[in-house]
């Protein structure tokens, strides 16, 4: 199981690196747009493309965010409980988080498939298909669900005696 945890951790870091590159792309695209507009040319694809990049970046960043405990939470309940039951609460909360991510992955996949099948476009001048943006939701949150599984494995591997 250690191999699995390491693999998922690594995958999350890779996704975060890809997210960083996409975000840099968004910075460059918008900067480019402002420059060419200042020079008198018109722009039509840049805004939408930058939004696509941002959406992709934040969904791909989600598993890494979970891995590094970056999704803000209020752990009032676990801190009030004795160490033993706190562990149980953390485990239960992780399972709930896993279920929420799986559900959102499912509805996201449904949305993506529907959008892909109907050939839906954004309706703007550039009119890109919308499914490449939608697909980031099931992808990112599916990977987040996978990271939850890894966190649960990690939690189980920690012997209760080794808790701080």
């Amino acid at each position, binding site marked *: 199981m250690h191999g699995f945890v390491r693999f998922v951790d690594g995958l999350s870091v890779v996704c975060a690196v890809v997210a960083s590159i996409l975000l840099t792309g968004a910075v460059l695209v*918008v900067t480019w747009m402002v420059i060419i507009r200042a020079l008198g040319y018109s722009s039509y694809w840049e805004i939408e493309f930058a939004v696509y990049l941002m959406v992709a970046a934040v969904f791909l960043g989600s598993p890494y*965010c979970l891995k590094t405990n970056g999704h803000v939470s209020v752990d009032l309940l676990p801190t009030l409980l004795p160490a033993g039951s706190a562990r149980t609460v953390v485990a239960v909360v992780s399972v709930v988080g896993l279920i929420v991510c799986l559900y959102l992955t499912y509805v996201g996949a449904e949305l993506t498939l529907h959008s892909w099948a109907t050939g839906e476009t954004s309706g703007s001048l550039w009119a890109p298909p919308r499914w490449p943006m939608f697909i980031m939701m099931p992808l990112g949150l599916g990977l987040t669900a996978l990271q939850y599984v890894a966190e649960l494995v990690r939690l189980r591997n920690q012997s209760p005696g080794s808790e701080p």
Partner: protein
Amino acid sequence: MTETQIGILLLVVTLVVLFSGLPIAWGLALIAVAFLAIFEGPTALGVVAITFMDEISSFALLTIPLFVLLGAAIGVSAAGRDIYESLYRWLSRVPGGLVIANIVACGLFAAVCGSSPATAAAIGKIGVPEMLKRGVPPALATGAICAGGTLGILIPPSVTLILYGIATETSIGRLFLAGVVPGAMLVVMFSLYAWIMSMIGQRAEAAPPVQTFTLKEKMEGMWRVTPFIAIIVAIAYFMYGGFATPSEIAAIAAFLALVLVVVIYRTYKLQDFWAIFRDTVRESTMILMIIGAAALFSYMMSLLYLTQTAAEALVSLEMNRWVLMFAINVFLLIAGCFLPPVAIILMVMPILIPVLEANDFDLIWFAIIMTINMEVGLITPPVGLNLYVLRGVAPQVSLPTILRGSMPFVYLMIAAMVILSIFPELVLWLPNTLMGPGL
């Protein structure tokens, strides 16, 4: 069930779910989906994914990752140290000059950074050890940074004000301008407090040796800060001149900051860039997931007619408007102790907008009051993010000491809210002068 009963059930469930330690984004999504399924039937769930996606795929929201990136880029560089060191050299002869230098540095840093914990971390990681070394009482040293850091979300650019602008459909440029004078006012109030405390402290014990600096030393390091001041001025110029939208300005500012960090601070190691982007991706994801989930949450509340019921109930109370404002602030203070500003603004504003309008409160003015209120939440337990940042930069100072040092600043912030309520012009003068009177 009546709307009121559902509303009370929702409040209880929300508190339990959010305090369980489940990430706020997933918690809000879970509650929204559960309430939709139970009270509207499973067919209402057909729009869950599209509601989430439509909310976060907006060009206005692109400002958030980009301003976070701007702050992270500058945070990784030594700009924080330079700002703070040059201020100290100018202020070294003033009692409490070191503390004041730190507070002003927080204020300046806040002008390129939209987040409070990031501001506290950037200045605190150099400022706190330095202050402790030179004999500033630990409570004052940590309290000053804890409070100074909160200026990050009041002084533009501010992630909190961007969200407020999106949630209330008010102009982000106007909101940013509205934060300038109150931000400066808080810097002055904090500094005065530090000055007075240092005067009292100096009388009690032997005066610490005053270090003097020559003009050359004072100017040293200044030139390295200049480009960042230039970024601040450029942001202000473009934003208020109406030449570009906030997202465009954020992109250019982030681009320039990255270039400057490379050119001036010679940051070119892959490791440093990873640190910048890692933090940016983490924070942006966290915020945008909460935004998407909060959109689901408010969709659910509005579909079940809860938002409207709550707003109507508040309007029909026909309270004195200042009693109402007081009650709203008490509620926000309590909520702010537990939840991050992002979640509070998105969940509460749909209810408050009609209430504020019915009572003739200006939405721009309220943005600033609410932001200062949220700042208090950032330095009070149990979820005071800034407290934990300071624990990180000064592990030798205990949490109770940090808290003791922060409390006087909390009182100053509350005093600032009272002053701004008596003199709303302090908030509204700058935006109205530069952008014309609001609607």
